[in-house]
């Protein structure tokens, strides 16, 4: 099954993600990135979108953001996310069209079906990429992600196997409108691709507002392991409220169950780009800080003067979170009360 010959694999794909017939913003980010890579490779950028009840406007938008081709797979069997079906459909399309690169969103969905695609294709997959570039001499995709802990990044390549698969978190790449024309293809999906060993009986939509609010907030207050006490979260929330912002967390905090999973910022969580970000008890491991992008002012409060977060902070406060937090909250409330909202 493994096709190690690199010949005959051409084109860059971005897998779009839809929710209730609407494109998720990450889709456009990936399509724009696919276009950029395709231009470097002098090949075509393709957006792949599956689901049910997808409007023509979705395809237009994907072309507007850089897709030369939209592969639209519409079927009622794709209305809900079933890992095995999504993986088999994508794998089937890849085998028939043979793209050299496939970008998929590092969302709960993308991260669940892409490893299945990887294994069916016996090729490489790199999770949660932050940067992607082409090595000009051999068309190889250079995939940058954060390494474990510390402040280390790693460049990964998949030199021989094709396609080169990566997932990319939402909010990492930049969506760019281009003036472009494209075409829509509607590939046939054989019935056997749609067989599934699972049944989704209920989909509950919840907390979306808060999750979205965090990724769009102008001010984000981040809780890290160093907040020590769960009670401090109340103060953090008050501070975020006073600043008109949202509370995010590092994985240490969500793993403890102190805050819901969707508040986790970093490689395996969400990416945020607020004007002001205040971190409390965050050490600054790259796996977390890669989720902080394009921040105007980063404030770090941490007891440990050697914490790497201070290297990237605009303002560093070496102090006990328990001491700073109440004082800061009080001051912020005072200042906010004085100036009319």
């Amino acid at each position, binding site marked *: 099954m493994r096709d190690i010959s690199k010949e005959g694999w051409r084109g860059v794909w971005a897998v779009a993600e839809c929710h209730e017939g609407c494109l998720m913003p990450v889709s456009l980010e990936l399509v724009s990135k696919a276009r950029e890579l395709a231009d470097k490779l002098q090949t075509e950028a393709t957006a792949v979108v599956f689901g049910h009840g997808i409007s023509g406007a979705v395809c237009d938008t994907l072309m507007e953001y850089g897709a030369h081709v939209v592969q639209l797979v519409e079927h009622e069997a794709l209305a809900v*996310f079933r*890992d095995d079906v999504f*993986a088999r459909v994508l794998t089937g399309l890849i085998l028939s069209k043979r793209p050299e690169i496939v970008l998929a969103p590092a*969302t*709960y*969905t993308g*991260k*669940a079906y892409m*490893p299945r695609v*990887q*294994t069916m294709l*016996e*090729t*490489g*997959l*790199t*999770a949660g990429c932050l940067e992607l570039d082409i090595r000009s001499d051999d068309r190889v995709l*250079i995939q940058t992600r954060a390494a*474990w802990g*510390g*402040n*280390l*990044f790693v*460049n*990964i390549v*998949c*030199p021989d196997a094709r396609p080169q698969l990566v997932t990319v978190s939402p909010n990492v790449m930049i969506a760019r409108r281009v003036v472009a024309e494209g075409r829509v293809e509607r590939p046939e999906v054989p019935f056997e691709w749609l067989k*599934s*060993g*699972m*049944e*989704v*009986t*209920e*989909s*509950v939509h*919840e*907390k979306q507002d808060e*999750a979205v609010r965090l990724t769009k907030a*102008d*001010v984000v207050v981040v809780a890290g392991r160093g907040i020590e006490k769960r009670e401090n979260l109340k103060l953090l929330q008050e501070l975020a409220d006073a600043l008109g912002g949202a509370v995010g967390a590092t994985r240490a905090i*969500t793993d403890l*169950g102190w805050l819901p999973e969707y508040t986790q910022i970093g490689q*395996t969580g969400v990416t945020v780009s607020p004007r*002001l970000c205040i971190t409390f008890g965050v050490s600054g491991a790259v796996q977390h800080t890669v989720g902080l992008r394009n921040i105007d*002012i*980063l404030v770090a409060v941490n007891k440990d003067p050697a914490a790497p977060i*201070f*290297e990237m902070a*605009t*303002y*560093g*406060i*070496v*102090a006990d979170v328990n001491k700073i937090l109440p*004082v*800061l909250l009080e*001051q*912020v409330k005072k*200042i906010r009360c004085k100036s009319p909202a």
Partner: protein
Amino acid sequence: MLNIAVCIKQVPDARTVRFDKETGMMIREGVETIINPVDLNALEAALAIKDGHDARIHVLTMGPPSADKALRDALSMGADQAYLLSDRAFAGADTLATTRVLAAALKKIGQMDMVVCGNQSVDGDTAQVGPGLAVRLEMPSVAYVNALELTADTLKCIRMTGHGHDTVLMKTPCLVTVIPSINTPRMPSLKGKMKAKSAGIPVWTANDLGLSMNDIGLAGSPTRVLNTFVRSFEARRERLEGDADAQVAALCERLVAAGVL
């Protein structure tokens, strides 16, 4: 009787890890190893099923000989049998090569009704091994599982989605990867520890698993690490000194001046 497999990984304990400030590399000296934390949730999920069903729990790991300790810890929590997949030739495996080894071992152990994995490891951080393994075992898989319930041959899972959660049903055999909030792992027991101490743990090599050298370790891994690098951040890096009141006052002054407060 149900056969449930739990795949675990031995990882460095984040609490003991230090980094070289210059190179950003992990300082290996003095680093303790633990079971990847969410793999304990996977084991607990299996143990909870065993509490209510006639089940046998097989726990396996691919790693160096020292990963024996992780397996004995799992046995002391209540797993029935452990297997260590250890061979120098396994070294340098990416997720694709890792799933080949795990799949070969599971096929050698026998037909599993269910495989439970932690969603991701703290070191690799890819979340790829579980779903990939499912493909090799020809099982459906559900990732990011936050609740599990087994009734006869149907496994009901609650999984996280970007918008909330789904209820998903699968017939066994199937594979799930779980997230930390699914449960609280139980403590090991003294009797379990005593039993684990003398438990026989088979060590299987590539040869024992009938794997070709081209399929495992670095040779069997399509991805390569090109290089690692440290990113320097361009930050103003101003330390605000004094007691808490002074530090907060200085901060507020700057934030007001910048127009963000």
